[in-house]
């Protein structure tokens, strides 16, 4: 497998305080990789080291095959960045921002205009592209920044909390852009977030970070699966006999009864729906409805850190 970003015990200390503690990441090429963690977990610090903005105090990292300390300039040429805090000049227009960026990254003059039009198309600024950015809404500014990070066809796009402080509608819009982008451009996206939903929807792989340490990394599906905590909710015509019989099945870990509905705790619930229905039928019980629920990443986070992500603040 081909990794576009690899870190080897990368560490950042501020005095005695360890903001990022011996992190080892392997980010597959062309994936959307999420770093999920509460405020102060070290997400920005980690991403800043990968972007050559901060020098690590220990360990090393490569981005697109280049060392982030020794080959900082090559790393910079390979990446696009959207910072957590806004980085726009309010007296330049959106188009001028893109143009300036293209020049700074040496995008050849012949293709520059075409590329900028392409990007403007992608981020959908419309007429606003030629107005000063001080007249933009928060979501437009964010979209412009994402577009700007793309102008020079980077191999990796870093997004530090791309939807922080945006309303739910705008957030979903940005999610759409990120998905579209990953499909249309040959690019790896490394994003940080503390929204579970965001990591779940967008990322192929998620690393959970807490207090500077990566606790666990895997695909959202596997992370949730590992909790072994799918819930199957069933309604049947003879609840009592069903509960008695279903308890004997070894793939059912626990059974909860709640009025007429029965909840079964299982692993890999998606494979178990047909056998359960068959099982009921064989025992002369009619299944009226059956529903499968996976745990969410919030459950995953709690199970690994003992706190919910929002409590971590």
């Amino acid at each position, binding site marked *: 497998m081909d990794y576009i970003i690899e870190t080897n015990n990368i560490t950042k200390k501020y005095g005695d305080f360890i903001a990022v503690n011996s992190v080892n990441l392997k980010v597959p090429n062309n994936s959307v990789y999420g770093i999920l963690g509460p405020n102060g977990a070290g997400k920005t610090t980690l991403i800043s080291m990968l972007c050559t903005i901060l020098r690590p105090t220990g360990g090393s990292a490569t981005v697109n095959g280049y060392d982030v300390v020794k080959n900082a300039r*090559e790393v*910079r040429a390979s990446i696009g960045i959207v910072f957590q805090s806004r980085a726009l000049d309010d*007296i330049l227009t959106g188009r001028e921002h893109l143009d*300036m960026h293209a020049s700074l990254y040496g995008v050849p003059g012949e293709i520059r205009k075409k590329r900028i039009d392409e990007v403007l198309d992608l981020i959908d600024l419309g007429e606003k592209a030629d107005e000063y950015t001080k007249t933009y809404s928060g979501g437009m500014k964010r979209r412009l920044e994402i577009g700007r990070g793309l102008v020079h066809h980077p191999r990796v796009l870093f997004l530090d909390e791309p939807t922080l402080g945006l309303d739910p509608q705008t957030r979903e819009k940005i999610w759409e852009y990120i998905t579209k982008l990953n499909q249309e451009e040959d690019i790896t996206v490394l994003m940080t977030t503390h929204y579970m939903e965001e990591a779940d929807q967008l990322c192929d792989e998620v690393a959970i970070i807490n207090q500077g340490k990566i606790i666990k990394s895997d695909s959202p599906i596997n992370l949730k699966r590992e909790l072994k905590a799918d819930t199957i909710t069933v309604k049947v015509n003879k609840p009592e006999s069903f509960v008695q019989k279903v308890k004997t099945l070894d793939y059912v870990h626990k059974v909860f009864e709640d009025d007429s509905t029965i909840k079964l705790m299982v692993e890999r619930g998606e494979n178990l729906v047909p056998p359960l229905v068959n099982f009921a039928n064989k025992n002369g019980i009619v299944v009226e409805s059956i529903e499968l629920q996976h745990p969410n990443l919030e459950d995953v986070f709690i199970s690994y850190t003992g706190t919910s992500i929002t409590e971590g603040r």
Partner: protein
Amino acid sequence: MAEIEGIYIIWLREMKRFVRYRSRILTSVVTPLLWLLIFGTGLGSAIRFGGIPGGYQAFIYPGIIGQTILFTSIFSGVSVIIDRQYGFLKEILVAPIARPSIVFGKAIGISTTAVIQGIILLLLSFVVGVQMTPLIFIASILLMIPISVGLAGVGLLIASFTDSMEGFNLIMSFVVLPIFLLSGALFPVTGLPNFLQVTVYLDPLTYGVDALRHIILGQGAIPLHISVIVILVFAVVMVFLSALMFSKKEQELM
């Protein structure tokens, strides 16, 4: 090639900011005019100032041009601190472009805006009754370029050491005003008490103002070639130093 492109785009941004903040252009012309018309006329009629046709007002005219260049250059240089607060400096510094190119683009951008203001003042020479010939005009412009580049370097250098605009008043009191007042913009630099004489000659703007006075009024206290050399060296050293600081401190600046 990519570097030249980068220098150009940073210069261009400086131009756009200059043109778009219209109030700044207006104040940059009105303020020197107030100095010339009010201060120049007022003090000029209180003291006897022989030797120069046009009197005291004409005498301070090159000095006020120097002052305009000084204020514009240093404050524009220091405004990098604002770019930093707005996060825009990060966007520039994280680009794969050499740090000296960034400093250089910024310095020539600032210099261009300062020289434009200087040109406006040159065109207004009739206000103080000073004769302007094409030769004087061009020679003055050529002189303003290294003066403003050097002072922009001072501003950039200060910015690389300062991380908030809190220090702004300090910069005004401890850098800009002393450079202005010691430069001989408002008084002749000869025959001063000893300690003052020394500090006056340590002020780079002294040489700038004196050279301008040479060219515009035909008289100065320091030989013209010496002033020109000092100004050129000053410009090169300041740009070099700020480029060095930007390279060394890039991590802190981002």
